[in-house]
């Protein structure tokens, strides 16, 4: 088991490095940071001075390793635009994103797993159709529209929650629903498929023949086996959510890491983008790794590979 974890960990590190190098090169290809930093009406001399001052004239590899060495010690540099340390800014904004990500995932699991199980327990009945309906609608509604409808109903008309911001904990409710609902369909369909598979297995018939309570068969015996692929999927989705949702953060004025990433891209703010890309890919890789380990623990057959 230890060897398995060490191997996966090594692979994850390699992936993280590759992602950061590719994104670094792409960012430099996408735009000239010196022109955007120099500002409006800057002369060619000023632009050249900026280029030299920030070292954009050095070879790409040199710039990359310089950045990487400092990044490894936690120094992501100063944002070109906010003129404040990137690490402090990211540290301030990540918790918002992580909070709605975790809440959204919680919401998605609470909605998707029970409905998925029920849909599998009563296949091709009105229960299954309703679950399918929830999934299809969740897949089809664009987040920005869903978010606005919720704001109109629950904030403007009913006055139950604030429309934007996080001045009160109630401000997290609507973003949680929008983000969570988006992740619901995939988890629900996978739960249903897994459950259908397991429910036709012999041991379930045995369990029911023994006279066990039906609910206990469903949730205790069947779900445990059906949940393995769901764990992998949920981990990947949580990785996505921690990368921030530009749409949800922008509608609800949450100022999380996703919105910060969007703003820094449109402003060519390289240090901020680089730090965020590294952190987002770490999340993604970390959660995938966690899912691998979790699955290996659940199913010893996977450890061999």
């Amino acid at each position, binding site marked *: 088991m230890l060897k398995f974890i060490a191997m996966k960990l090594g692979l994850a590190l390699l992936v993280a490095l590759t992602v950061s190098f590719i994104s670094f090169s792409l960012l430099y290809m996408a735009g000239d940071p010196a022109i955007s930093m120099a500002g409006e009406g800057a002369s060619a001399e000023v632009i050249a001075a900026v280029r030299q001052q920030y070292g954009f004239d050095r070879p790409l590899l040199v710039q990359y390793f310089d950045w990487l060495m400092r990044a490894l010690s936690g120094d992501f540099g100063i944002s070109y635009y906010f003129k404040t340390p990137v690490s402090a800014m990211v540290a301030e904004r990540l918790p918002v994103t992580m909070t709605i990500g975790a809440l959204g995932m919680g919401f998605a699991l609470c909605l998707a797993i029970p409905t998925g199980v029920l849909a599998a327990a009563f296949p091709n009945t009105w229960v299954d159709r309703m679950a399918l309906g929830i999934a299809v609608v969740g897949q089809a509604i664009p987040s920005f529209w869903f978010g606005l409808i919720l704001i109109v109903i629950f904030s403007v008309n009913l006055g139950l929650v604030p429309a934007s911001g996080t001045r009160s904990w109630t401000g997290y409710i609507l973003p949680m629903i929008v983000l969570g609902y988006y992740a619901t369909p995939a988890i629900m369909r996978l739960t249903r498929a897994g459950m259908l598979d397991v429910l036709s297995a012999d041991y379930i018939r045995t369990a029911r023949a023994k006279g066990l309570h039906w609910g206990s068969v469903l949730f205790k015996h069947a779900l445990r086996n059906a949940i393995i692929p769901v764990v992998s999927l949920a981990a990947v989705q949580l990785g996505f959510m921690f990368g921030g949702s530009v749409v949800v953060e*922008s509608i609800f004025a949450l100022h999380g890491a996703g919105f910060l990433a969007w703003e820094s891209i449109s402003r060519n703010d390289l240090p901020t983008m680089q730090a965020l890309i590294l952190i987002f890919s770490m999340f993604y890789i970390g959660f995938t790794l966690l899912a691998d380990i979790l699955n290996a623990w659940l199913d010893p057959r996977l450890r061999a590979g």
Partner: protein
Amino acid sequence: MKLASVFATILLPACLASSLAYAGKADDVLNIAFSRELEHVDPYYNTAREGILLGAAVWDALLYRDPKTGTYVGNLATAWTWIDTTTLELTLRQGVKFHNGEAFDADDVVFTLNYVVDAKNGNKSQTNTNWIKSAEKVDSFKVRIHTNGPFPAALEYLAGPIIIQPNEYYTAVGQQGVATKPIGTGPYRMESVEPGKHFVLKRNPDYFAAAKPKATIETIDIRTVPDANTQMAELFNGEIDLVWGVPADQADKMAKMGKFQVVNAPTMRVGYLSLDAAGRTGAKNPMTDLRVRQAVNYAVNRQGIVDALMKGTSAVINSACSPVQFGCEQAVMTYAYDPAKAKALLAEAGYPNGFSLDFYAYRDRPLAEAMIGMLAEVGITAKLNYMQYSALREKRIKDGTPISFMTWGSNSISDVSAVTSAFFRMGGEDDARDPAVAALLEKGDGSVDADERKAAYSKALTTIADKAYWVPLWIYSSNYVMGADVSFTPTPDELIRFYDISWK
């Protein structure tokens, strides 16, 4: 464990804070929404309109332009005189204090000006300051500004974007310190800054109020709410008292509800199509032909777009500047909508079946698409390339574009030098590269005689219209939506002076 600590750090304080927020007239808090994150509160380190607003609230400039009469009056300076054509001497006001108690004197002025003109310090609004060569202290309350050649628009800049920083404080905390705790002399002091997200201004009770009045509202609470629909929802909920830049259709609906005040006011921002007359995208580019450029001018139904899509006080312009700006000649060649004439001109230029080209734009997509439709009607197939502003600007500087739909707000500078000269004096975004026009503008920018300036600008703008270098489109207007108890009159320079806002 991790999650629990996240909850503890984020949710708990949020719960406690919830009882403190929300306000309005009762608590003397004016809630305002910014549409985008302001990167840095120091006006020299952002190029955003929001930055200009904070600049006017927290800091002071040496002079002040009365928004009603347009005349310059003293602010941090009390008197000023041109010693020669490149030296301006200013006498400074005594007894003014910065928000941290630091006394204002000549050192602050000299420090600020020399700091922002030094390329090393990375001032982002070069157009505002690149006319200054240096500043020099004469005595404690007298300074001299040396300019790079005669620059008559100097007073306009000294009354607008050039604000004065406290030298001792600034040197001590640096750019990074100022980013979270800026200090000025203005009618409001900055109480707190969460970079990009949230700004709280408090009334400065000791404001010297020589030109700008003392503020009346105690607290201005500014939050960044990027989504226009969410801004509307917050207005409905009474948690925002004032927003601007509201799209025309939404403003109409809000006005009909009767709960809000909706005011439409013109701005200094002009829209234009820049045509590649200099052939920077290729010498064979059709835009190098005068007849093609004229055809494009005739093909665009500007009045139709203004009436159908922009509404309010937006209006068609014919000259390459905003009509309220000094020197903006109005008696120039006009191109009324005439698609038949456009087709005839294209045929004459050798394009009887039209041609296709890339059309670049960065905002107002519906307007860009309307213009592309009109070009298609005369046979020009324009492919829309919709980009971020910074990326488009970079492309225009590096490679040029055949045709770009651009806008320019002149940084609220009411002088033609802030717009026509910015785009026709062989700068990076000059698509005409016409030496005659550049020479005329240089003459206008460099003369101290008002009539001489007007004459030079008039000739330049007449040539620009005759040669159809641009398609001057329209001036933008802005819709302000405010709560029923807010008293505020918008000005055409689109500058929201927080100290001019009061409760009804």
